[in-house]
Each structure stands twice: as C-alpha cells, then as structure tokens.
C-alpha cells in the first residue's frame, strides 16, 4: 500500500534557525500518526509544509504516491489536505458558519451565498463534534475552547484525504477531546490519514497508531504506539527522563494573600468566592465557559466588578486597572497569549521587561544592560529556545512563547500570581519545568492561583482545587486527595445560584 502522505528529506530554514533537517514521515491511509517533539522541534513547520503554507527548502512531499510540487493553501485544499492550525485561522468578526466555509461558501443562483445551506452544514459539523452553537454567532464571542471546535469543524468541512491536527486539544476539555477522538477514528476508518500533533502523551496512546518523534528538526525515532512506552517517547523527545509527581502531603501555608468574596462581573461571572494563602497553589478548575478567566480578569482590575469584593492581605482593594493590581503585588498571565499576553512583533527582551520597565531602568532611563541581564536570566532558567534575546517573539514556537509569557510575570516578582492556562501548548519537558518553577515559587511564599482546563495538570499542581461552574464557585477539594471524577462531578453538576455551597 502506498503511503497517503509521504514526506521525504524535508528541510526548512528560518533566519537563524534550521527548523527542519532531512525529515521524513510516512502515514498510511486510515492511520492516525502522532508527531511528537519538544517546543520548537519543527512539528508545526512540517505540518505547514505538507499543507502548502510554507515551501520546503529541500525534499519532496507525495500524496498517494504522486509528487506534489510547490503548492499553496488553495491547492492543498483541493488535494484534500485539511489542517487545524496551532495558532488558529479564524476571523473573529465573522460568524461561525462563515469561518467554517471561509472562501468556499456554498452558493446558489448568481453566485449568491446560500446562507441556509451554510448554516445547516455548519450545525451538522458541529454536532458531529458534540457541540451545539448558533452558526450565526461571531467567533470573537466564543471562549477559546469553542473557537477551537470551530477550527476543527472548518478542517472537517472539506472532502478529506489527509488531516493534520496541530495541537487541537490544547484548548479543549475532556468532553470535547473525547468527541474529537471519535471523529478522528471515524475518519480513519474511512481511510483518511491523520497527523496528530500533541504534547499530551496520554492522548497519543489513546488514539494513535504510529508515532514519529522530532528533536531539533531531525527525526529521532519512528515507533508503533503499541510497541513503545511513555518513557521511551520522552527520552526520544527530550533526551532525558521526565517525571510528573503529584503534590504530596500537607504543606504549611502563610496568611491569606488574596481573597475573593462573592465576585460578579459581566457577562458570565455571578458569584465567585475563594481565598489563596501565601505558599499555596490553588487551582481553579471547571468546564469551558465556566467564567474562570473572567473571574481572574475581574480580580486583576481588567474587568469591572459588578458586585463582591477583593481583599489583598486582608485589606479590601478597588483596582482602577491592572496597574493598581500590580502595585498591590498581583500579577496575571492571561490565557490568550497572542491577543492579550505578548507583543509578537517585539523581541524576547522587550516582552520580558514589559511588566518591569522600572526595574530595568535607572532614574527613568531604560538600561539595556539590565534588560539583557533580566531576559538572559529567564531564557536560561526557563530554557527558552531562542537564538537570542533579540529574536522576535512572534517567531518562536508556541511553547516557547508560553515560557516568555511566564517569564514576563515572574520578572515582576509578584506576591500573588494568577496564571491562566500555564502550559497550553507546552511540551512535556517544559511542562515539568513550569511545574517545578511554580512549585518553587510557592515554596518561597508566593500565592498562586492557577486556572487550568487540563485535569491531570490540576491534580498535579494543586494544593487546593476550587471548582467553578456557570459563573459560580461550586466547591473545593483537597489537592492531595482529589481525583478526576470528583472534580468533574462538581464541575458538571447543575447548579443554581441560590443553592450554592460557597466555599469558606
């Protein structure tokens, strides 16, 4: 049987980076093939070359044995290659239906767009993925997880021969992930070849047949999933052992640093109460759209509080904006790193220093020495893979961007740090690194509030788990003893405002 997708000897260079070097990859029809590798290993680049976004410097791509020359996105679509981009390809101002059929809307007479058909087909595609959304909603109004589902629906809206999924589940919760897997299996059964990129090894073992591991732009191993182990894959990827240990035993915490009492903020947060103590890691868990991110923004002064109060070190505070929150010792790494977190067209050093301009300046004057030193420190400590501190952040791989985002807030040395989805798109090595850093910070007395939709992550990190549903905090669990089921039960329980077991 000829491979559905065959890439041979692919090389690709970016200024200062050899992203891919003689990489080969073969995927049979009906196979779900995992592509693994650290951040910056070149996974997305390979996917983009196959999908016609980039052209390779060397090497050749074959689809069903036929060599495809220099193609662009349009041609790739015609060849039946679909791709879910890591960084998204949706236009916020337009409706879900239009995004799904971008440039390929079904048309009726006189080339007129057939909106009814477009809506119906969108609804059906979304239903396949287990989501009910009004196809007329604007994508900008969707929380990241739902946008991700739309992104997937968009790739599925064509007649596919091959599908590339670049970290499709980074923003998804369990439920949607399961649905996506089902869809993948159905497609595979129909003979579609799927390339699956993810940093979650458990997913690889649950879904994939074969796996190719990249490191620094080279293939370090090709395995059958059934014949390999997590440890082996990690070794191939990282070159060393990585282990995830749960927080063990009860640690001692300090005074209450941050407390939220009955917070409400438009449009989804209705009643959130919890406290974070010095040295403690509190994880805010919940389903998509539970209002966790908005709660954090409200606390941080980036969103207007409609009701309730925020206390920092026991004192009631009213923040006019994030600057006030920062002055009070709060920091917040937002979940959407492209839109809200980073300055993509600026370099690493500038991004790291954005929150601490006063720290890198003396008597009002920016000191490039200090800025360099600070950036250099974090590049080393967080092992950010960048050619230099002068590299534009927009050119870093997703995981490394995430590390820059963390660095930016660590540089501020806050008393209370809110981190929204700290490891979205981060590789296993870096993830354990980030966990280590977060724990380390906590042990040094920082109060940490972590929002995460990744349950294993919640269980690994949390000293205490606060669960939100429907804009309200609905319960608390002990981080050391809680299990996935307990969290999910709280998060999915139908709650009414008046029947809330609000945490003390």
């Amino acid at each position: 049987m000829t491979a559905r997708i065959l890439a041979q000897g692919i090389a690709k260079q970016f200024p200062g980076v050899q992203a891919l070097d003689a990489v080969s990859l073969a995927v049979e029809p009906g196979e779900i093939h995992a592509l693994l590798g650290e951040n910056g290993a070149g996974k997305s680049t390979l996917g983009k070359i196959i999908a016609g976004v980039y052209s390779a410097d060397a090497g050749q791509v074959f689809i069903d044995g036929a060599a495809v020359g220099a193609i662009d996105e349009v041609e790739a679509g015609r060849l039946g290659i679909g791709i879910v981009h890591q960084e998204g390809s949706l236009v916020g101002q337009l409706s879900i239906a239009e995004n799904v059929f971008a440039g390929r809307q079904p048309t009726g007479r006189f080339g007129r767009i057939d909106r009814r058909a477009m809506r119906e087909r969108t609804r059906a595609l979304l239903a396949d993925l287990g989501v009910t959304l009004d196809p007329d909603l604007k994508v900008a109004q969707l929380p990241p997880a739902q946008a991700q589902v739309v992104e997937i629906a968009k790739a599925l809206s064509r007649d596919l021969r091959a599908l590339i999924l670049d970290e499709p589940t980074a923003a998804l919760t369990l439920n949607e992930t399961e649905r996506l897997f089902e869809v993948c299996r159905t497609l595979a059964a129909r003979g579609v070849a799927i390339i699956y990129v993810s940093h979650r090894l458990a997913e690889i073992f649950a879904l994939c047949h074969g796996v190719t591991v990249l490191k620094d732009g080279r293939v370090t191993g090709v395995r059958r999933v059934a014949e390999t182990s997590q440890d082996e894959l990690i070794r191939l990827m990282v070159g060393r052992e990585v282990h995830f240990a749960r927080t063990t035993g009860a640690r001692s915490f300090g005074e209450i640093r941050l407390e939220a009492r009955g917070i409400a903020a438009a449009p989804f947060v209705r009643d959130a109460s919890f406290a974070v103590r010095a040295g403690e890691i509190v994880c805010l868990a919940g389903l998509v759209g539970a209002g966790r991110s908005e709660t954090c923004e409200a606390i941080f002064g980036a969103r207007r509080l409609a009701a309730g109060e925020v206390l920092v070190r026991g004192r009631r505070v009213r923040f006019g904006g994030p600057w006030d929150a920062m002055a009070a010792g709060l920091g917040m790494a937002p979940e959407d790193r492209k839109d809200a977190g980073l300055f993509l067209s600026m370099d690493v050093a500038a991004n790291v220093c954005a929150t601490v301009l006063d720290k890198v300046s003396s008597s009002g004057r920016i000191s490039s020495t200090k800025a360099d030193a600070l950036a250099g420190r974090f590049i080393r400590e967080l092992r950010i893979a960048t050619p230099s501190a002068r590299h534009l952040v927009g050119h870093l791989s997703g995981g490394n961007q995430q590390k820059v985002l963390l660095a930016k807030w660590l540089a501020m040395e806050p008393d209370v740090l809110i981190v929204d989805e700290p490891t979205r798109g981060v590789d296993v090595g870096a993830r354990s690194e980030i966990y280590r850093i977060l724990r380390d910070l906590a042990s040094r007395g920082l109060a940490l509030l972590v929002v995460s939709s990744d349950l294993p992550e919640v269980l690994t990190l949390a000293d205490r788990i606060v669960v939100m549903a429907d804009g309200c905090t609905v319960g608390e669990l002990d981080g050391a003893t809680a299990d996935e089921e307990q969290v999910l039960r709280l998060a999915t329980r139908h709650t009414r405002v008046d029947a809330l077991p609000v945490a003390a």
Partner: protein
Amino acid sequence: MSNLALEPAAPSFRSRAGTLPRRTLLRLANSRALMLFVLVAALIAAMSAFYPNNFPTRYNIAAVLLNAAQNAILVTGMMLLMIAGGFDLSIGSILALAGVWAGVAVGWWGWPAEAGLLIGIAVGGLAGLVNGLIVTRLGINALIATLATLTIYRGLTYLTAGTGVTPIGDAFKAYGQSVFLGVQTPFWVMLAVVTVGAWLLANTRFFRQYYFIGGNARAAKLSGIRVERLTLIGFVIMGLLAGLAGVLGASRLNSAVVSAGINVELSVITATVLGGASLKGGEGTVVGGVLGVLFIALVQNAMIINGIGIFWQNIIVGLVLLLGVSLDRFKHTHRG
C-alpha cells in the same frame, strides 16, 4: 487609535426570521447603516418641515443627489478596500487623470465619445493596477504607496494636458448632462454602481473574502484565500470606479479639469468610516458608505439653506461627524 477601538460591528448573518425585507431590516439593525439611515431620514423630515418651499423641491433634491454621485461611486470602491484593511489616497488624482485622458481623446484627437469614456475608465483601472502592484508586489504599505501615486498621477495629469480640455464635445457631454426622470445621468450610473456593489459585497462568495482579509489577513491566507491577488483586484476596482467618476465628472462639466478631485480622498474616507468601515478592516457595508455620503451631502445642503455662515459650517460639519460615529459607540458600551 486604531487598536484601541471598541468591538467592531462586522456584519454577520443574523437569524432568518421572516421574509426578505424583514431579514434585510434585521441585518441593518444594530449597525452603523441603520443609525445613518435614521439620521438621514430625520434630517430630511426636519428640513422638509422647516423649509417646505426650499428643501423638498425637485431641483434641490436632484442637485443633492447629483452632487453626491461622485463620492458615492468612489465610496463603493473605498469600502471594498477598507473592508480588506487597505485604502487608496490616490483616487482624486486617478479621477483627474481619467477625466483628462477622456478629454484629450475626444476633445483633441476627435475620438468618439464612447471611446473617450472607455479610455478614461481604462486609465483609471491601470492606475489602480499600479497601486495594487506596488502594495502587493513591493510590499509597500497602502498609505505611503498611494500617497506617492497621488502625486505621481497628479503630475501625469498635468503632463497630459496642462490646461485641461474645455470644451470636450457635445456627444461627450450628453453622457453627463442628459436628464432622466428629473435627475442627470451621473446619478443613475451611481445608483447602478452602488446597487450592484452592495449586492455583490453582501452576497457573493468572491467579495465576501474581503471581510476575511480585513478581519485577519494571516488567518485568511491560512484559509486558502488569495490575499494578494484579491488585494490587487480591490485596487483595480477602486481605480476603475475612480476612472468612471472622472469621466462622468468631465462629461457633466464638458470639461476635463486637471485640478479635479483634489482632496476628494479625505471626504470619501470620511464617508466610508462614517458608514461603518474602520482602518483595521473587516467591517463595513456599501449601503453604510453611501448613506454616509448622503448624510454629509444633506448636512451641507441644509447648512446653506439655513443660511449658516461659512465659518460655522466647518464647525458644524465636524460636530455632526463626531455625532454620527459616536451614537452607536454609545450603544456598544452599553452592550458591554
């Protein structure tokens, strides 16, 4: 500050309750276009009530419509470009260049009127093509590219005919001066352009792509939309429309004026933004843009009828502009 703007009012497909007219109405709702429509209607009503003998007369209405024709044609093209996140400052010069070429062909070389019209429009399209090539091939941003061609095309206009061409010819002027249902040809041409343009932009797959480009060019490209090619086509369309406006103007005055269209880009962009476009791109409708042109034209007409001194006219136009764009901003803030 473009990146500080509040959330945009991009058109979207609303639910399809009811009949076609009702749906159209619904689509207008919550939009700049509706706001302008209300403002225009209110202004017409007020003027008709206070000046029944001056404002709602056949000649006055015809004159307002005729004078708005040029900008309404231009706004159709500008809206397309601005939806795609671009714009064209050189339209005034293109307009003059097209008019002068038509004038030279007919008035000096004695070509038939139709050939003159065509050559003018073609010159406009060519100028637009050059703009588009500079922007897409050389990668120079639209602001500086069209600022440069603004002066270049104006220079070419002077070189072509330093004194302009007057008169052009009787056959030629018929195209701009003949009257149909009480209004002159340019108005009817405008009506056709605007109607077709509005329909195409709102309904066809091809033009719908411009909303993607303006909304997020990178995402559009990843979605298989040929951003560069479409941008180029957008500039050519703008050029053709500017050429059309140029030959119509020349024909209406029976004179190809080298100084035609100076500063017209500012009033056209004003109307386009008033009509719902933004510099960021991704939003706006042709109907909105045309209502923007009409609104400004009516305000100017109203001020003269009211006998407002010219010094005050500037101030009032400015205030009205602020009012026009702030009304629905207000609504936005309330929506959250």
